[in-house]
């Protein structure tokens, strides 16, 4: 293949890598490895941080990573409530042991939290899921999977409903890497990089057009 043809092929691959096999991609990169290195260099240059606000960064770091682990606050609040119930029961003498146990157990199962050292937490309520759900730490890779299947999984994770205004888009196969810890807006932004459909959020719905 001529040099100029290889360059065009490589540039096409940058935009639509899922249309090519791994060996085709490798062949194109190896055919002009210097070009790929130059592209990486320019990407690095264009994304170098400019002004860094260190004080602002420290505040974010404090809030996200150094706040008292929420699991401790959670346990404290449950213990305090349980203690209040017991004291009330003792004072009134009217509550049975079974009633106290029922109340404490229901309070503890209302919300669930997962705490890991230094990681940000979010509360996942049975009736009102938040956008940020701390489940898997590892990214999930969808390799040549239909969009309908991908969105079913993603939407379920965030507690959203999926609506396909564009029925044809359901069967489009994609390669997508998804980190369940990232906010749903990031995922929607990634999906909108694909040209054959567009995705938007409408309240608690993900709409595909």
């Amino acid at each position: 293949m001529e040099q100029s043809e290889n360059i065009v092929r490589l540039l096409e691959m940058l935009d639509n890598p899922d249309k090519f096999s791994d060996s085709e991609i490798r062949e194109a990169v190896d055919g002009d490895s210097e070009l790929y290195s130059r592209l990486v260099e320019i990407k690095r240059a264009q994304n170098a941080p400019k002004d860094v606000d260190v004080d602002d960064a420290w505040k974010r770091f404090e809030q996200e990573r150094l706040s008292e682990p929420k699991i401790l606050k959670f346990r404290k609040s449950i213990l305090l409530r349980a203690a209040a119930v017991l004291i009330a029961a003792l004072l009134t003498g009217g509550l049975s042991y079974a009633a106290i146990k029922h109340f404490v157990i229901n309070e503890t199962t209302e919300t669930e939290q997962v705490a890991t050292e230094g990681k940000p937490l979010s509360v996942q309520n049975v009736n009102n899921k938040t956008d940020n759900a701390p489940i898997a730490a590892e990214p999930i890779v969808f390799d040549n999977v239909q969009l309908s299947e991908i969105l079913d999984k993603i939407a379920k994770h965030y507690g959203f409903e999926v609506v396909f205004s564009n029925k044809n888009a359901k069967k489009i196969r994609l390669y997508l890497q998804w980190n369940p810890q990232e906010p749903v807006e990031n995922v929607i932004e990634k999906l909108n990089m694909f040209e054959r459909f567009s995705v938007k959020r409408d309240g608690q719905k993900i709409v595909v057009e």
Partner: protein
Amino acid sequence: MHDKRLLERIFKAHYPKMLRIAKSLLYNDKEAEDVVFDVFAKMCGRDMDFSEGKTEAYLSMAVRNSCLNIIKKQKLRERIQKLYPLEDEIVGDDEIDRAQLIAEYIETKIQEPEKSILKLRFVDDLTFKEIALRLEMNINTVYKYLTVSIDKIKEHFKAN
């Protein structure tokens, strides 16, 4: 490390460089910051030698390794789409300094429409087809401008 003030001092002294290292590999602001925050957070509760040279060396290595681990977990197609290095690449101070110089060269010496094409592709992550539509030109013209600007950058830095 149990002293928050010590951590704050170390954080503020080293954060800018660590962010530069992370961004030089991952490009994305949030992803780069997450890696850097993770590294600093792991320092909490550890007994370490915090003498100046050793702290920077430890942090640099930890940030680089975290970034490279993220890149390695991605398949070839995603790596190429994000323009991640495809082989294990050493991105040291020289490469970061060079990136800064290239950025300045693009800002001051590259003319339009090449400058816009570089920004739209490498910062805004538009596809070449989207760039062609935005700038109202044929996609092959976009490719041509891109390769011309790459050659200019290459020649300038070869000469210097």
